[in-house]
């Protein structure tokens, strides 16, 4: 804790102690606690550094008029302070500890009703219970019973916290840490701080007794208690070591059995959770296995399916139960589609009958089928000896379910018609089935059905009643199946024709979502095809799927779409479609110049950000995949290059001036590519200024390489001169300079980084100023007399004036005034790079924008200021805490 904070803290404590009413900003207490927690975790002792805290606690606790929020804070603070054995002892010397957690005290004061206080109590104790002394205190104070009561508190947060707390006590103080147990934080366990076994035994006894009691609901209204108890039990069993686990199982075993027999629907899933937790930790406990068997034999089909699904999700490898679960999950599919997935069901048993009855009700039918469907991919991956049928039959069943859903099922299907009509037209089932179908690509033998899959998917795309999300999923499935396909010979002319027609139709759809997914599909398809080509596939997948129908005209139409998302998707799809041509250095097609001019039009005129971003990205991918013109390349390929360079120049100048910061960042990425190409041969150049530490957030990342000193000789910069001239001429330097003074931090940061890289390449600071200016003096760039140009000039002037303080200020302003006119000015690039103070700027930019306002100091100041203003009557203070 720094000195300034330490000085302010007593004042803050006084404010908190004195505030009868709540603080204007209720998050400040949380922030304060976070800060304290941080200090404690770093090993600092709060008690030593801030004795005022203890005073605060005793004042607040004794003040009956304290605000519940502040009280809650105090409880949690006390717990935090007493988290180590040493400080616990210190606190215990004061009478305050008993008072703080004294339930009776709070109840008598009428404050216990406030949930704020109850949660503070739990969390305070939770922080404190990190050492045996605390446990003794906890046990001796008789807190276990109130805590158990809180487990069914009316507030869900409190009930949950109480559950967590109970689990913490049992697990944390387990006598022998089991080897390799994936338990909770046990870093302090090795200190020989074994709790007094009497305390722990007492805790275990009362908690397990309670578990046993509360597990089986006495009346239907007590289901919530059972639910909470089951949750707790699952938490415990998943992490408990053998002695505790065995003890628990022994205690609650009978109750669990009773619950399984009772078969309450509400409790099925949590109960399954408990049994599976027990299973995974205890291995082959006979009793647990028996319980599991009974769970997979309950009478209510809907519950049974959920139980089976839960079992499969846990990924157990017990053959008997897996086989059982698989049969349970496949039965509804078998009934509905008439595909014999389960072989001949010889035992036309009661279970099947009751499943059919369930399936006849629409809502339960849909939910059951969806559960089955989402588990089918998992089922196909189970070992063959467990599966009642070949994995490929499951694919067939999903396909025929999809046909039923769309109402296209052939009448020969033997499925139960009374059941199947419940899913006709249900987009929920359709989506589930399509998702399942997408995942089923990885099932063994699935590829045998590929032709059928394509037919069904095209039917779905055709269907006028398909929901936009269903269409989207169909496209995804189509792509996935295309990507795993190695042989396209199954695609008939008819299939190809159908697909082409449907795609053409869907790009004209009324719903923009549909147009968007179609355009996206075309782009992804080009991507898939490229990757297939990369795998040396002789046949062109795109050609196989779409024949000689070129998708480019469709995508070009979509560039005119009224919906910005569609335009953006069309642009990126075009980029994906053309990437292959660019890589090959293919000749420029007739339409390419038209596309480019349309894209530039979008960049300069579109009112939405998405398409403009996509345009810049289009040129990024073009630039990065084009092959630079070599001597052997044909003239047409060089015409492609010249079109690219020409348009890149416009993109740079327009993207620089865009209002959207992402467009500007993308423009800088493009500029970076140009820099990379220009200077890649130079030893001083570090390619990819921030690609090595690219983080998803551009905020607050410190550049690694900007500070290394280079020791180049002048010869290094000789070749750079001409390259620099090229780069300046391309407009790259203008982009970088304008980015540097941009008000959006990510833009400025990126620009600054690139400028530093450039400086290190062409005129490193290590080089004498004279050398550098001599070498590079000839290269200059033009700054516009207004906007960013003036900003840059201003910085340059300031730097100069720093160097020559004696210069008259009046002169400066006079000079500025002269330039207000807007005449552009030429400056030497190298000089500018050196005198812009890039390194200082970088330092400022790398700090996150709220670094000043987020410091503990400012927090303390805020509290103080707020209280000062707050106490003035009649003044409404709105504190912006962010």
């Amino acid at each position, binding site marked *: 804790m720094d000195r300034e904070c330490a000085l302010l803290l007593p004042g803050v404590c006084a404010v908190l102690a004195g505030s009868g009413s709540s603080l204007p900003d209720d998050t400040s207490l949380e922030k304060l606690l976070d800060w304290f927690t941080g200090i404690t975790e770093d090993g600092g002792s709060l008690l030593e550094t801030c004795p005022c805290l203890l005073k605060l606690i005793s004042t607040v606790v004794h003040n009956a008029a304290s605000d519940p929020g502040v009280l809650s804070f105090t409880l949690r603070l006390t717990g935090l302070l007493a988290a180590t054995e040493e400080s616990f002892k210190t606190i215990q010397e004061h009478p305050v500890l008993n008072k703080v957690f004294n339930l009776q005290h709070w109840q008598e004061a009428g404050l216990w009703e406030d949930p704020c206080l109850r949660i503070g109590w739990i969390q305070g104790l939770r922080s404190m219970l990190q050492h045996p002394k605390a446990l003794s205190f906890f046990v001796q104070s008789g807190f276990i019973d109130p805590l158990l009561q809180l487990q069914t508190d009316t507030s869900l947060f409190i009930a949950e916290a109480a559950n967590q707390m109970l689990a913490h006590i049992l697990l944390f103080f387990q006598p022998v840490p089991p080897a390799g147990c994936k338990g909770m934080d046990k870093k302090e366990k090795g200190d020989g701080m074994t709790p007094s076994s009497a305390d722990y035994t007492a805790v275990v006894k009362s908690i397990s007794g309670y578990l046993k009691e509360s597990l089986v609901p006495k009346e239907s209204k007590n289901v919530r208690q059972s639910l909470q108890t089951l949750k707790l039990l699952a938490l415990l069993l998943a992490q408990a070591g053998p002695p505790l686990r065995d003890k628990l199982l022994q205690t609650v075993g009978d109750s669990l059995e009773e619950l399984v027999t009772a078969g309450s629907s509400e409790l099925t899933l949590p109960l399954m959770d408990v049994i599976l937790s027990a299973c995974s930790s205890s291995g082959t406990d006979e009793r647990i296995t028996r319980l599991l068997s009974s769970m997979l034999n309950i009478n209510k089909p809907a519950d049974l399916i959920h139980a089976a699904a839960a079992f499969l999700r846990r990924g157990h490898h017990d053959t008997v139960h897996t086989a059982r679960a698989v049969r349970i999950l496949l039965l509804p599919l078998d009934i509905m589609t008439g595909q014999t997935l389960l072989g001949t069901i010889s035992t036309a048993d009661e279970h099947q009958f009751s499943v059919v009855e369930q399936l006849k009700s629409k809502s339960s039918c849909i939910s059951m089928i969806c559960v089955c469907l989402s588990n089918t991919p998992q089922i196909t991956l189970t070992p063959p000896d467990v599966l009642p049928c070949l994995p490929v039959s499951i694919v067939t069943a999903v396909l025929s379910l999809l046909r039923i859903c769309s109402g296209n*099922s052939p*009448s020969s299907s033997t499925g139960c018609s009374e059941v199947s009509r419940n899913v006709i037209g249900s987009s929920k089932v359709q989506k589930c089935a399509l998702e399942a179908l997408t995942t089923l690509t990885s099932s063994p033998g699935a590829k045998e059905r590929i032709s059928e899959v394509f037919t069904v998917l095209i039917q779905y795309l055709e269907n006028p009643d398909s929901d936009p999300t269903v269409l989207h999923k169909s496209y995804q499935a189509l792509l996935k199946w295309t990507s795993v396909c190695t042989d396209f010979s199954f695609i008939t002319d008819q299939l190809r024709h159908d697909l082409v027609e449907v795609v053409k139709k869907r790009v004209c759809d009324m719903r923009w979502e549909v147009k968007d997914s179609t355009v996206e599909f075309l782009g992804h398809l080009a991507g898939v095809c490229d990757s297939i080509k990369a795998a040396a596939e002789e046949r062109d997948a795109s050609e196989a799927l779409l024949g000689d129908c070129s998708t480019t005209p469709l995508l070009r139409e979509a560039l005119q779409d009224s919906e910005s998302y569609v335009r953006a998707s069309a642009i990126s799809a075009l980029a994906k479609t053309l990437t292959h041509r660019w890589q090959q250095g293919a000749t420029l097609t007739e339409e390419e110049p038209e596309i480019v001019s349309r894209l530039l039009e979008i960049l300069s005129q579109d009112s939405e950000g998405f398409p403009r971003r996509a345009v810049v990205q289009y040129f990024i991918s073009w630039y990065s995949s084009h092959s630079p013109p070599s001597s052997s390349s044909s003239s047409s390929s060089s015409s492609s290059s010249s079109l690219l360079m020409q348009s890149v120049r416009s993109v740079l100048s327009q993207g620089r001036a865009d209002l959207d910061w992402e467009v500007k960042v993308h423009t800088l990425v493009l500029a970076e590519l140009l820099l990379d190409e220009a200077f890649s041969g130079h030893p001083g150049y570090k390619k990819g200024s921030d690609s090595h530490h690219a983080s998803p957030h551009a905020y607050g990342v410190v550049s690694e390489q900007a500070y290394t000193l280079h020791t180049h000789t002048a010869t290094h910069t000789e070749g750079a001169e001409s390259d620099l001239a090229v780069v300046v001429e391309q407009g790259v330097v203008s982009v970088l300079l304008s980015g540097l003074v941009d008000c959006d931090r990510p833009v400025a940061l990126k620009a600054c980084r690139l400028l530093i890289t450039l400086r290190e390449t062409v005129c490193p600071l290590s080089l004498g100023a004279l050398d550098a200016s001599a070498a590079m003096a000839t290269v200059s760039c033009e700054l516009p007399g207004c906007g960013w140009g003036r900003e840059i000039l201003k910085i340059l002037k300031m730097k100069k004036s720093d160097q020559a303080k004696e210069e008259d200020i009046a002169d400066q302003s006079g000079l500025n005034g002269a330039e207000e006119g807007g005449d552009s000015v030429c400056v030497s690039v190298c000089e500018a790079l050196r005198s812009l103070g890039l390194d200082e700027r970088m330092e400022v930019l790398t700090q996150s924008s709220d670094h000043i306002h987020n410091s503990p100091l400012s927090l303390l100041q805020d509290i103080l200021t707020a209280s000062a203003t707050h106490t003035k009557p009649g003044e409404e203070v709105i504190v912006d805490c962010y």
Partner: protein
Amino acid sequence: MKLYCLSGHPTLPCNVLKFKSTTIMLDCGLDTTSVLNFLPLPLVHSPRLSKLPGWVSKDGSANLQKELKECAGRVFVDSQPEFCLPEYIHRELLDLSTIDVILISNYHCMMALPYITEHTGFTGTVYATEPTLTIGRLFMEELVNFMERVPKAQSATCWKNKEMQRMLPGPLKDVVDVWAWKRSYSIQEVNSALSKVQLVGYSQKVELFGAVQVSPLSSGYSLGSSNWIIQSHHEKVSYVSGSSLLTTHPQPMDQSSLKNSDVLILTGLTQMPTANPDGMLGEFCSNLAMTIRAGGNVLVPCYSSGVIYDLLECLYQFIDSANLGTTPFYFISPVANSSLEFSQIFAEWLCHNKQSKVYLPEPPFPHAELIQTNKLKHYPSIHGDFSSEFRQPCVVFTGHPSLRFGDVVHFMELWGKSSINTIIFTEPDFSYLDALAPYQPLAMKCVYCPIDTRLNFHQVSKLLKEVQPLHVVCPEQYTQPPLTQSHRSDLMLELQPPPMPYRRCSVLNLPHRRRYERVYILPELANSLVPSEIKPGVSLATVSAVLHSKDNKHTLQLVPKPPPVAPSKKRKRVLEEPPAVLAPKTLLSGAVPLEAFLATLQNHGFTEVKVEETADGHILHLQAEDTLIQLEEDGTHIVCDNNEPLRTTLRDLVLRFLQKL
């Protein structure tokens, strides 16, 4: 209550309900699918059609070259198209001159009106809403115009010969009642028929002879479309014809008024149960855009009112997003102008949000703006202005959807040869394959997106669940899944009790029995009644009165006092004399309790009584007197042999136990 079913077409119904003393015709739809058997009527000479080969049977025995032409393996009648009328030729089924009123539910269901009002001796009244009449008139005028502007010199009749017909191929062989098919009516007949229409507004109650009251309810299907409630004081029959729950342009359907019906006659469900209108509309738009983008023309065969308003509205929103701003839309029909204009003035018949536009004030339909901005142009026919302003690629809306007459025939001949053009069928009334048959081979792309906004099976089951009629009567087609989709058990009506199906020429005895009738009593007469309470809360009184029935209204009047007998001996007066009024006998009520009665008999000396139980009561045998007393629920008989004093004694004993009124 009887229902005579004159049409088998579920969406073009024609039924007659006999209810109380009235005979009510419910709709008179004209089944126009018969025209599919005829060759199209081209507006300008079509070399292709005129060169079609005549039909000769394989063995050459039947030669109808003049009447029948063959095209792509199918045979068509080369004659003025004819329509299949509702069944009224068989007079034995029902004499249509006895019809009191005709209730029209929408303009699609009145196209047979002239045949009925002008040729059957009909003298009643036709009831319809104003838009139904106006648009119905437009439809009829259009039909007459289509037929009359291309007159056919010959009229084919030989093929109808029974012997001949048996030898014909394909669908012609199987069509029934061909002799009853009729050519289109004339404009005079239309005018005369429509002059019999009386306008009604929604929920307006119309008394029919005091016997029943009929009242139209909004059905949500088209402008002015209605369902009808036919009710007496104690019975209610609902007639549900083309109805829709979709929020398109018309006023929403009034469902609650259909509640508590004794009988609900259900017709006019969607003809396309598997085609969702929204999906079809989307399909329509995307196919249209796809064709225009490829430089082709789009032909939309359609009626001149109804769905076209929705199509135009949908396109209004769609053309900008699909970049079709410069593509011209043409609407060609002899009544195009009137249809577009009338739709804008029927504000009170429109759905709420269209109604509210009128107060802004804005035209309720956006086609006004399309016309203003020249995106939509309408012409009475392809001749005249249209030919000079016609620009391709374009979208043409024109009739008739059967493709047998109207301007659409011309565009089929014009565009059919090129595969870049598309014909999009939106009307569900005709099978598109049959409609296209005489144009084969056809290169044009065909898209079938039938838009039928009428109730589907899902909606109707929900509706019936809510309004809970006691009995439902419907066409037999609705009681089983469609033939082509026999696995779709969701596409039929499943009700408890099951609906009563009907087909063409069925006569149904509706299961509802009339049990009550309202009778009024004059105040003077009521005053004279002396009620006596026979059990707590129930009083009875005997009434002697004259029942007076006039205009199906029944009134109990005082019995006129016999006038003082004039000493006249004329014969005439004797005849007019009212019948002598007998003093009313007292009425008895109650039951004779067996035990108490036996005790009483005992007291009176009848000791030897043998009691025998029968199905209806008991028989008491007084053995000494050789007398039987039959005690039954609704009568007591004393059988004794010529012993009047004994009978009287016994009678008096019985009477002791009964109440007298």
